[in-house]
């Protein structure tokens, strides 16, 4: 293979498959956060356990820029190919190992420590992967079609998310819920080693990037890419411009339209998890071809206009779209079938005590449009009446009819279309901003700060803002005052809307919109 020029199709496939698997590995953790929280953290406080799991999930995002620095530097010193072979092995190994970590019940405090360490390794690996893959494909592509060819890399994050959801749903469908909660959740993690192995076999025959080889022959590679990237004002200003004028907004649009859409439907609308994931998978699959479309379009009309248009439309469309999603699921807009409400109460000894009781109240209702509502409230009644009674653990689940499902799929598709506009051309944009000798380092950092930090933390921050707004309304209600927030479920969108607006302004004014690219 080294004697023959590799086809661009092979190069794109080899790069994309590996990147896709790395995204799958990274997202499987978040997709299974609810189950992981019961395995690796003490279960006496389910909310704290879930938040600890979210924090561990978030830690993987926060560490991505450090991975960008470490592996970006390596990629600019020794080459793109070998560096992203290392990131592939690191990610695959860390993901596989998560599937093997014994539970908290077995090894105590070592469990969360090990999971956190492996999650950090995942983040480091991902920090090095994307910049390498995008740079590698871009440096093989003809300049006038760079947007089209790099857009295939841009599909991998979304497709990786779809595959992670698909693998989880498939695994769950082959066993009972109890079996999945017991050991089935490990399967998606363990599968990673097979996928990474395949990707390794594909990638090991890849040749180095021609631009990097040329730079190496001419002696124009960098001896200190970190210093040249960030210690040099001439380049640092472009790193900051890439971050505040492009990737900050793009990262927020990406995570709002995909991950937060899932969190919003599950946690705020209380939609059934299988329906949520099905809606998301269909919406994502329908929207994925648009990455290629907008990437190719950017070759004709320029990158800046499409990216900023996607972000600007998102700023105005987010509140109406998420409001529509909420109202579609909300049972307040539906009519109860007369006589359909059932309330069942069971009492048992609390499994964690020999004297306390657990009272479970299950309320179900059916609606005229076919929707169903289920509320399970678990309350521990303490034998010691002088002790402070714990709060009830309440879980609500709503299922909707097919027509409403397609409405939600349509809303998710709209959100994905903004993602494809902002993200489709951005790989080519970032590559074209920086010279070959420091490209891997320079483009990776703003990308992973914009996506990993601003975007990756978005679901957690937004959920927190919604909870705060709901609590404020509850306090006002208890004080006999009017609600502070008319639509508390939309308050989480303030974070992405504010920052994306700043990004659009900076991008519009500071980024040049030439069609011709270097």
């Amino acid at each position, binding site marked *: 293979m080294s004697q023959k020029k590799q086809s661009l199709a092979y190069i794109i496939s080899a790069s994309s498959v590996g990147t896709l698997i790395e995204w799958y590995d990274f997202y499987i953790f978040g997709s299974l956060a609810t189950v992981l929280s019961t395995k690796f953290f003490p279960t006496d406080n389910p*909310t*704290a356990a879930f*938040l600890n799991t*979210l*924090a561990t999930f*978030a830690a993987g995002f*926060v560490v991505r820029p450090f991975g960008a620095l470490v592996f970006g530097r390596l990629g600019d010193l020794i080459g793109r190919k070998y560096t992203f072979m290392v990131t592939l092995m690191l990610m695959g190994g860390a993901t596989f190992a998560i599937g093997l970590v014994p539970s908290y019940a077995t090894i105590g405090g070592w469990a969360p420590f090990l999971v956190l360490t492996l999650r950090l390794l995942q983040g480091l690996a991902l920090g090095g992967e994307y910049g390498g893959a995008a740079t590698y494909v871009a440096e093989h592509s003809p300049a006038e079609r760079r947007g089209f060819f790099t857009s295939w890399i841009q599909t991998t994050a979304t497709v990786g998310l779809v595959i992670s959801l698909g693998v989880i749903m498939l695994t769950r469908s082959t066993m009972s819920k109890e079996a999945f909660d017991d050991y089935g959740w490990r399967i998606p993690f363990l599968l990673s080693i097979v996928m990474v192995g395949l990707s390794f076999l594909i990638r090991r025959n890849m040749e180095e990037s021609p631009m990097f080889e040329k730079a190496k022959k001419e002696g124009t590679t960098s001896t200190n890419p970190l210093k040249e990237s960030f210690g040099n*004002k001439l380049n*640092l*200003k472009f790193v*900051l*411009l890439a*971050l*505040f004028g492009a990737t900050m907004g793009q990262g927020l649009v990406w995570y709002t339209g995909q991950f937060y859409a899932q969190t919003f439907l599950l946690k705020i609308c209380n939609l059934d998890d299988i329906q949520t994931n099905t809606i998301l998978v269909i919406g994502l699959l329908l929207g994925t071809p648009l990455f290629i479309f907008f990437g190719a379009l950017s070759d004709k009309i320029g990158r800046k206009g499409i990216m900023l248009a996607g972000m600007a439309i998102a700023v105005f469309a987010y509140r109406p779209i998420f409001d529509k999603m909420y109202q579609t699921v909300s049972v307040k807009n539906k009519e109860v079938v007369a006589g359909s409400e059932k309330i069942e109460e069971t009492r048992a000894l609390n499994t964690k005590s020999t004297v306390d009781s657990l009272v479970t109240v299950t309320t179900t209702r059916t609606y005229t449009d076919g929707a169903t509502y289920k509320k399970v409230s678990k309350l521990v009644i303490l034998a010691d009446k002088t002790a402070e009674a714990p709060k009830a653990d309440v879980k609500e689940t709503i299922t909707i009819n097919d027509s409403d499902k397609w409405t939600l799929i349509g809303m998710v598709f709209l959100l994905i279309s903004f993602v494809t506009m902002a993200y489709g051309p951005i790989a080519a944009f970032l590559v074209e901003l920086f010279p070959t000798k420091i490209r891997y380092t320079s483009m990776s950092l703003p990308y992973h*700060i914009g996506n990993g*930090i601003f975007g990756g*933390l978005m679901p*957690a*921050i937004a959920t*927190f803002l919604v909870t705060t707004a709901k609590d404020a309304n509850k306090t006002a209600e208890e004080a006999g005052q009017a609600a502070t927030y008319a639509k508390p479920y939309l308050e989480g969108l303030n974070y992405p809307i504010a920052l994306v607006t*700043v990004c659009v*302004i*900076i991008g519009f*004014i*500071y980024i*040049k919109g030439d069609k011709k690219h270097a």
Partner: protein
Amino acid sequence: MNAIKKILGLIWIALGVSAGIYLIYFQAVPLWEKGGNDLVPAIIYTFVLAPLISIGMSVFGYYSVTGEFDNV
């Protein structure tokens, strides 16, 4: 456009500093005091978002004011 960039540079510096103060003083500090589950957003605001936005935007604004983005 270069004149606009210089004026905007001052705005970015002000925005960066204001965002840092808002995130730490008005958002993070009350969360640190409450503790418990609120420590997760407190950590994110204090150690990640506030430094990133305030330092990053301020440096970006400084470059804008000093003409580094003129004719770029």
